[in-house]
């Protein structure tokens, strides 16, 4: 059982997206349009989230703006007192919609950029979206939202991190999230192409540190470290089922957005259960709370209250056992898995793009046909 109130809900309201980024955090098997929760269900989820203690809401996707009800959801969230962020590619953020979102009480918009270099940005997105992103950024700024730029970093753009920071500053961002790629799902499929070299990582560290000082007080820079190049794993969202929950487009509810990769867990849906029941009672949320589940070297390690053994999704993805220490940790022999992946990083990237591929549905076809 949990004594914690969650603080943050990520509502992935759709998996549809015009972009095809090869590091997308959506699962490989995505949720199709017809399985998306309707507006009334999402409003119920937001109400239940607030009652459970959630204070921060991310309206995300996919591209959330492919749904026509983002304004209605933002208005409902605002009435509940939630601090709401729209996480968007910028594609589809027209002046009319941005104005309606502002009037609905939306407070913060994050616009993703793929690169400061347009050709590479197009290559990564699998489409030409830069003009729409620039227009969206200008609108967000003009209409007075808190404005974040977010950029996923990898081998093809890490060398331009200084230019990327300059781009965000020129756009007038209040915040810049520089997130080194985390290797789950699509990014794990593309790991060899995305993995930066240790020399790139070291050079970027220096540039980012200097920029943080230079922009302090005007643009806050949040730098998500490349965990494969670190000594210890990341404390995923402050520990499993402690502060954070994700509701997928079809209502399945996860302790982190990568959790569907742990195929040994089953995730309950807000279609069947209240959010409170899922948070407090469901097997998936209880699975890795506390430290009872831990093996050595975590169980007797003094860092277990700092990083909680690292990321369960990463442990499962790389070792097939979610109760193992996150292989990033240099205190486990599993670290060899990480070191060999870093050494494989070389050559020009060749991406496998994210497309909306659904799990095959056996009864889709009428019997006796085809």
């Amino acid at each position, binding site marked *: 059982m949990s004594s914690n*109130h969650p603080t943050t809900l990520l509502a992935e309201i759709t998996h549809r997206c015009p972009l095809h980024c090869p590091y997308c955090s959506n699962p490989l098997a995505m949720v199709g349009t017809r399985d998306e929760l309707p507006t009334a269900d999402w409003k119920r989820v937001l109400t239940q989230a607030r009652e459970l203690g959630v204070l*921060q809401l991310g309206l995300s996707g996919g591209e959330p703006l492919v749904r026509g009800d983002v304004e209605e959801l933002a208005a409902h969230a605002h009435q509940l007192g939630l601090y709401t962020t729209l996480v968007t590619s910028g594609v589809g953020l027209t002046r009319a919609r941005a104005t309606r979102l502002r009037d609905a009480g939306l407070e*913060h918009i994050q616009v993703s950029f793929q690169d400061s270099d347009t050709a590479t940005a197009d290559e990564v997105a699998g489409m030409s979206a830069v003009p729409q992103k620039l227009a969206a950024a200008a609108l967000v700024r003009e209409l007075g939202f808190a404005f974040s730029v977010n950029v996923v970093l990898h081998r093809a753009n890490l060398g331009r991190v200084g230019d990327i920071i300059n781009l965000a500053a020129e756009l007038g961002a*209040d915040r810049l999230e520089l997130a080194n790629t985390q290797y789950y799902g699509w990014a794990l499929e593309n790991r060899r192409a995305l993995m930066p070299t240790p020399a790139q990582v070291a050079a970027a560290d220096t540039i980012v540190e200097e920029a943080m000082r230079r922009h302090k007080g005007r643009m806050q820079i949040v730098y998500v470290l490349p965990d494969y190049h670190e000594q210890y794993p990341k404390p995923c969202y402050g520990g499993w089922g402690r502060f954070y929950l994700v509701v997928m487009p079809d209502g399945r509810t996860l302790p982190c957005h990568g959790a569907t990769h742990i195929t040994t867990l089953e995730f309950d849906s807000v279609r069947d259960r209240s959010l409170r029941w899922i948070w407090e009672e469901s097997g998936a949320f209880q699975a890795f709370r506390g430290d009872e589940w831990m093996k050595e070297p975590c169980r007797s390690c003094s860092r277990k209250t700092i990083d909680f053994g690292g990321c369960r999704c990463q442990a499962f993805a790389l070792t097939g056992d979610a109760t193992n220490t996150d292989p990033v940790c240099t205190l486990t022999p599993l670290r060899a898995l990480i070191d060999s992946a870093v050494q494989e990083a070389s050559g020009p990237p060749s991406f496998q793009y994210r497309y909306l591929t659904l799990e095959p549905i056996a009864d889709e076809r009428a019997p006796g046909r085809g």
Partner: protein
Amino acid sequence: MSLGPSSVPALWRFARLDFDPVRQQRVLLYPEGVVLLNATGGAILDLCDGRRSIADIAAVLQERYRCDVTSDVIDYLSGLIERELVRVE
């Protein structure tokens, strides 16, 4: 920048104070973050309006708590300034 009695603190324009009825607690909300406030923290931040100096804020709180709180106010706000949630003119 050194913080002293004449400094005039204000909340970051994208941060807002609220009361959370679930936790029965004051909270500071801002893009991608939450600070759960104790009663003293809430009382200090209520007075950070971009007009009052730290000396003014300490004077109001001194009236309430019957002791000199100037250094406590400076200590508390230094942490939030470091996190850029409070800005000083």
